[in-house]
C-alpha cells in the first residue's frame, strides 16, 4: 500500500491521519501526500495527528512528516501527535522534529562577473604566496650548503633515476619526432626556393636553440612536475609535512632542494640527448623526401652545429628545471584538505610549469635577440 494522508477539519480543529507505508522506497508518494495535506488545514488553530493507520514508517518517512508538522507549528497551528496507537512511529517523528529545515544552508550561486571579481581579488594573495615561496626557497638553498645534513641527500640518486634515466625514452621520442617535423616542414618550404641544402641547418638551429629545451622541459613538466606535485600534496594532506616540521626538519631543505637539484641536473642531459635524436629525425625526414645524399646531410649538419647554438639552448635548461621543480613543489606544499586537493594541485602544477617553461624560454629568446647572441 502506498502513502496517503487524510486531512479533515472541524471548525478550528484539524485532523491528520497518515496511512500506508511511509518509508524510503515510497518517499516520492510521501512527499506528494505531505504537500497535498498542508493546504487542507488552512485556518485551523490546532492539528491532531493520528498514527494508528500507518503500516510502516522509517527515518525517511518520519523526516517528511516531521517537516510537515514543523511547518504547521511555524504557521501558528499547534500540532499534537497521538502516541498511544503507534508509540514507535511517534518516537521516530519526535526524533526529527524541530531540527530546523528552514535553516538549510544552500550553496550560494555566483554569476560569471562575481567569479571574475573573486579571482581578481585572490590574485594579489597568490602573487604574494608565490614570492613568499621563492623567497623561502632562495634562503633554503644557501642554508643547505651551510648545513648539508638538513637536506635529504639520500633521495637524490633515486630522484635522478626517476626524473632523468626513466624519462630518457619519452623525451628522446618527443625530440626525435620534433626533428622529423622540422625536417619535413623545412623540405616542403625550402624546396620551393631550391634551398633544400639548408634543411640540416634549420633542424640544428631550431632544435638546439629553441625546440630542444622547450620540448624536453614541457615533457618533464608533465611527467616529473605532476609526480612531484602529487607526491608532496599527498604528504601534505596526510600530515607527513607537519610531522617533518615537528621533528625540526625544514620541508624546503629536506624535500624541495633535492628535487629542484635533480631537475636542474637532468634537464640539460635530457635536452642534449634529445638534440642528438632530433638530428636523426631531421635526417630521416630529409632522406625520405629528398634525394640529398646522407654524406651531404651529415656535412651540412656538422657545419651548422656551433658551440653558440648548443650553449644558447643548454644554458636555459637549468633555469627551466628549477622553474618546474619550484612550481611543482609550491603547488604540492600548498595542498589543503583531502584527496581532491591532490588532484587540483597536480593539475595546477602541470599547467603552471608548462606556462612557466614557455615564459622563461621566451625571455631567453628576447635576450638573445636584443643582445645578438
Amino acid at each position, binding site marked *: 500500500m502506498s502513502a496517503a494522508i487524510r486531512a479533515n477539519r472541524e471548525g478550528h480543529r484539524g485532523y491528520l491521519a497518515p496511512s500506508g507505508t511511509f518509508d*524510503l522506497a515510497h518517499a516520492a508518494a510521501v512527499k506528494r501526500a505531505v504537500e497535498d495535506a498542508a493546504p487542507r488545514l488552512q485556518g485551523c488553530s490546532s492539528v491532531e495527528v493520528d498514527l494508528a493507520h500507518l503500516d510502516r514508517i522509517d527515518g525517511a518517512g518520519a523526516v517528511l512528516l516531521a517537516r510537515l508538522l514543523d511547518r504547521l507549528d511555524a504557521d501558528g497551528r499547534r500540532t499534537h501527535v497521538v502516541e498511544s496507537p503507534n508509540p514507535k512511529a511517534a518516537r521516530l517523528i519526535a526524533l526529527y522534529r524541530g531540527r530546523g529545515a528552514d535553516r*538549510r544552508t544552500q550553496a550560494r550561486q555566483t554569476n560569471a562577473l562575481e567569479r571574475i571579481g573573486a579571482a581578481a581579488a585572490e590574485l594579489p594573495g597568490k602573487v604574494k604566496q608565490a614570492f613568499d615561496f621563492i623567497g623561502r626557497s632562495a634562503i633554503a638553498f644557501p642554508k643547505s650548503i651551510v648545513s648539508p645534513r638538513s637536506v635529504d641527500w639520500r633521495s637524490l640518486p633515486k630522484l635522478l633515476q626517476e626524473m632523468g634515466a626513466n624519462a630518457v625514452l619519452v623525451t628522446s621520442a618527443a625530440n626525435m619526432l620534433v626533428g622529423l617535423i622540422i625536417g619535413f616542414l623545412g623540405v616542403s618550404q625550402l624546396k620551393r626556393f631550391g634551398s633544400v641544402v639548408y634543411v640540416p641547418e634549420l633542424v640544428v638551429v631550431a632544435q638546439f636553440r629553441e625546440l630542444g629545451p622547450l620540448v624536453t622541459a614541457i615533457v618533464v613538466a608533465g611527467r616529473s612536475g605532476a609526480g612531484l606535485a602529487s607526491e608532496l600534496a599527498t604528504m601534505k594532506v596526510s600530515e607527513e609535512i607537519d610531522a617533518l616540521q615537528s621533528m625540526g626538519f625544514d620541508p624546503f631543505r629536506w624535500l624541495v632542494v633535492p628535487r629542484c637539484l635533480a631537475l636542474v641536473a637532468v634537464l640539460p642531459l635530457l635536452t642534449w640527448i634529445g638534440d642528438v635524436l632530433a638530428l636523426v629525425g631531421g635526417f630521416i625526414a630529409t632522406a625520405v623526401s629528398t634525394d640529398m645524399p646522407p654524406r651531404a646531410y651529415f656535412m651540412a649538419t656538422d657545419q651548422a652545429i656551433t658551440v653558440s647554438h648548443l650553449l644558447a639552448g643548454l644554458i636555459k635548461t637549468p633555469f627551466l628545471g628549477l622553474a618546474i621543480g619550484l612550481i611543482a613543489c609550491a603547488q604540492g606544499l600548498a595542498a589543503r584538505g583531502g*584527496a581532491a586537493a591532490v588532484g587540483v594541485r597536480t593539475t595546477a602544477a602541470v599547467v603552471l610549469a608548462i606556462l612557466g617553461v614557455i615564459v622563461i624560454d621566451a625571455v631567453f629568446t628576447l635576450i638573445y635577440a636584443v643582445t645578438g647572441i
Partner: protein
Amino acid sequence: MSSAAPHIAVDNLRIGWGSRILIEHVTFEVARGSTLAILGGSGSGKSTLLRYLIGLEKPMAGRIQIDGVGEPHLYEGVPHFGVLFQSGALFSSLTLTENLALPLTAWTAIRGATARELCHAKLELVGLGPFGEHLPGEISGGMKKRAGIARALMLEPELLFFDEPSAGLDPISAVELDQIIVTLSRDLGITVVIVTHELPSIFLVADSCIVLDKTAKGIVARGDPRKLRDESEIPFVHNFFTRSSPDVSGEQHAIQGG
C-alpha cells in the same frame, strides 16, 4: 522473519590470508535491536572481522547470515546495512550533503528537494545541520565521523557497523558519538555492531560483547561486558577490562591515571 531470529548469525568463521589463519571457530549471534561490541587488543582481528561481516573479504570457511540471508546473495543489491569507517571515509571532493546524497542517487529515485531534505535531516540528527555545504577537509575528525554516521543512515538500514568510532576523539566528542549510537539503537531500534577498545564506550553502548585474542586466534569470552569486567577469570579479559598488564612475574599492575 520472526523477531526472535538473530539479526546476524556467524557460524564457525575462519579468516586469514593464504596459509595464515588470523582467527577461527568464530561463532556468535546478534539479536535484532541490540548492540554487540567486538573487543580485543591491537592485531586481534577486530577490524578484519568487521571487513568480513560487511562483505569486503571472503572468509576461508564458515558462514555469515544477515536477516537469514547468507552468501551468495547477502552482499548483492541495496545494502542491508550502513557502515561507519574509522576515518569517516567521506569523499573529500564532495560536500557533506553530496556525500549523504550518494547512496540515494545509487539506490533510489529520490532527487532534488526531497533528497536535500532527507540529507539535511540526517545531518541535523548528528548535529551537523549547518555544515551541509562544507567539504570534509573543512571539518574536524569528530564531525567527519558524525557525517559518516549520517551517510550510513541514508538508506534507513536496520543494521549499522561501526569501526572504532571514538578512536582519536576527545572525551566530549567521544561521548557525543556514543550518545548518537545509543539513540540509534534505542530510539530507532537499529542493530549495532561496534568494533572498539574504548572502555567507556563499551560500557555505555554495548548490550553484549565478544572478546578476540590474537594468541588464542579466536573468541576467548562473550557476554555482558559489565559482567565480564567483574567476573571473568580469563587473564586477558581481566586485563583488558581493568586496563592492567601482566609483568614478567605474572603479577597484575593497574595502569595508573589511564
